[in-house]
């Protein structure tokens, strides 16, 4: 049984939510656990409600979905409020302020927003405005957490990012970026075109979100470059939802490929398209995948597929294969390797390991 086969019934339901109507109690028992571990239960719960399935569900299942919907609804309200406060704080910043990922989906009611769980808010500002943005946010109550000097250096000097900001009263977390990938990353991409193509939000003056193609590309490069495979499947679901919706617009596929070329994000896009098709049966025309820029060499693909599959399946014990631990470790190392050159990486990993050791003793 390969990994994709092992993650049933979750994959069946993700591919076709109406499948929930056919599950027996044993199936529901497993689905709730797999979906819960993958951060996707709320999404399924909202879809069940939308499809009118709720009334015909087994009585013992219904409370779980009610609870899951409650959590998502609260988070959605919180993200929207937080985005407003961010807009308010950054009113005087020159240039666009873009909401990224989850917050962007929530504010614009895009397909990935359905039942999505959020943690931090990510925004993108022009590099030149980073200092001003940080100052304005600090005035409005967002501060860097008490981190040691090392962390501050890691973020500021090496990754050229601000450390995460925490709001002093609300406790919410804000990540301020000036590019889609860290500056030290092996793949270099440009923020300029993304900022230029931003779509302003009508009901939130001062805030924008990336263009459709850029939302997809950012999600792809985030998933396939970061080490956060805990919600890898959720991120893949975001991608699938966007691709299905955006591809209804004529010209979307060629625009996506051209944009991947321009932003130098062809590689992560390739992985995203390949995984979406295999895992979630996203309807992607064959010629689109074939025409994807910067594809990995053929010999590398089976290995990368195995690694990514292991990462995507890692959420729940019933989905994991034997080698998942090794695979997720390799992916973790890979994400760091992609993020920074060796001369920075090795001391960094050593420092992190020592710190974890200190905290445990």
């Amino acid at each position, binding site marked *: 049984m390969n990994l994709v086969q092992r993650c049933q019934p979750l994959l069946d339901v993700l591919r076709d939510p109406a499948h929930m109507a056919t599950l027996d109690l044993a199936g529901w*028992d497993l689905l709730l*656990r797999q979906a819960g571990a993958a951060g996707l239960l709320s999404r399924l719960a909202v879809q069940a409600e939308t499809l009118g399935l709720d009334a015909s569900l087994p009585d*013992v299942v219904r409370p779980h979905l009610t*609870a*899951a919907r*409650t*959590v998502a609804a*609260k988070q959605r309200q919180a993200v929207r409020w937080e985005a407003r406060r961010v807009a308010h704080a950054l009113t005087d910043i020159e240039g666009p302020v873009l909401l990224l990922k989850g917050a962007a989906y929530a504010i614009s009611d895009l397909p990935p927003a359905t039942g999505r769980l959020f943690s931090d808010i990510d925004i993108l500002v022009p590099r030149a405005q980073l200092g001003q943005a940080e100052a304005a946010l600090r005035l409005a109550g967002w501060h860097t957490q008490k981190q040691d000097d090392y962390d501050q250096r890691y973020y500021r000097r090496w990754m050229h990012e601000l450390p995460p900001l925490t709001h002093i009263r609300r406790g919410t977390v804000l990540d301020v970026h000036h590019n889609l990938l860290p500056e030290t990353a092996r793949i270099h991409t440009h923020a300029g075109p993304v900022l230029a193509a931003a779509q302003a939000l009508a009901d939130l003056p001062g805030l924008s979100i990336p263009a459709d193609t850029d939302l997809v590309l950012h999600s792809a490069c985030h998933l396939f470059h970061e080490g956060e495979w805990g919600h890898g499947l959720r991120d893949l679901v975001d991608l699938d939802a966007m691709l299905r919706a955006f591809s209804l617009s004529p010209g979307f596929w060629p625009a996506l490929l051209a944009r991947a070329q321009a932003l130098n994000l062809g590689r992560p896009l390739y992985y995203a398209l390949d995984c979406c098709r295999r895992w979630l049966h996203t309807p992607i025309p064959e010629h689109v995948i074939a025409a994807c820029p910067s594809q990995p060499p053929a010999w590398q693909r089976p290995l990368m597929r195995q690694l990514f599959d292991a990462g995507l399946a890692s959420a*729940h014990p019933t989905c994991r294969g034997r080698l998942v631990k090794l695979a997720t470790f390799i992916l973790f190392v890979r994400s760091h390797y992609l993020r920074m050159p060796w001369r920075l990486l090795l001391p960094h990993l050593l420092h992190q390991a020592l710190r974890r050791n200190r905290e445990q003793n």
Partner: protein
Amino acid sequence: MKLGDLSLAQLRHRLADNDLALRTGPFVTRIHSPIPQVADGLLRLYADFPLDAGEFRDFHVRVGPPAGLRRWLRPQINFWHDGHSPFKPLPANHAFALLEWGLNWCVAGHAHHYLMLHAAVLEKNGRAVVFPGDPGAGKSTLTAALMLSGWRLLSDEITLVDRDDGLLVGLARPVSLKNASIDVIRRAFPDAVIGAPAYDTHKGTVAHVRPSADSVARVGEKARPAWVVFPRWREGSPARLSPHSRADAFLHTASHAFNYSLLGGLGFELNAALMDACTCHDFEYSRLDDALRVFAELAA
């Protein structure tokens, strides 16, 4: 079938095989554990509880040794909910207490179709008293004593408020006692069944009182809230009730609830409805028999 229908050997077997599903109020939990102390505790305190033979469980938990070398040095155990461990490992002789904390964690962390307050709740003559209360205020002692003198226990820790009708839903699980209150209850109720204590936990010495058969049998009955009472044990104090501001009670229950914030506007409405339905009181006492008398009068 009830848990008490199994022999200890059968119970141990089923726990070790991950083949035991226990119903506690609205929840069915499958428990996996090779630890003898867990089987002992369950048999002693959960004999009246029904076992569930169905294919759907609300929670899947395990209490057992963590992987790794430590298991041979100083025996430890940990709690997992569906493969995820929310706590740090504890000494092996705290296994039953860890199970109880874990079961609370499962409910408090997931059952958001209820508003969940951090409070004890008991019912008598069709009306329920809710005890929010800070740790160390004598709430658990009072809860155990009321149950042992005939009040129906819904919960000693988590008050579940039904979002559709505002009624209270019970779990009827064992009452957790700490330190001195264990002896107080033993002396006042010599027939009470109390589990083996766990010493040197982060809360001191912890033991659990078996829930009354009536409480377990009637766990499916929801209860109508009538009183919110903030108890406080104070040396030499006569047992007496005095008024407590409802706005203050609202804020207290909200800030100590497990999911008030998470429920958003609904949490506000449910908590407010609770305050509307109840009179709020402070309660001071020192002698248990005085306290029981005051509550008997309240419920009459």
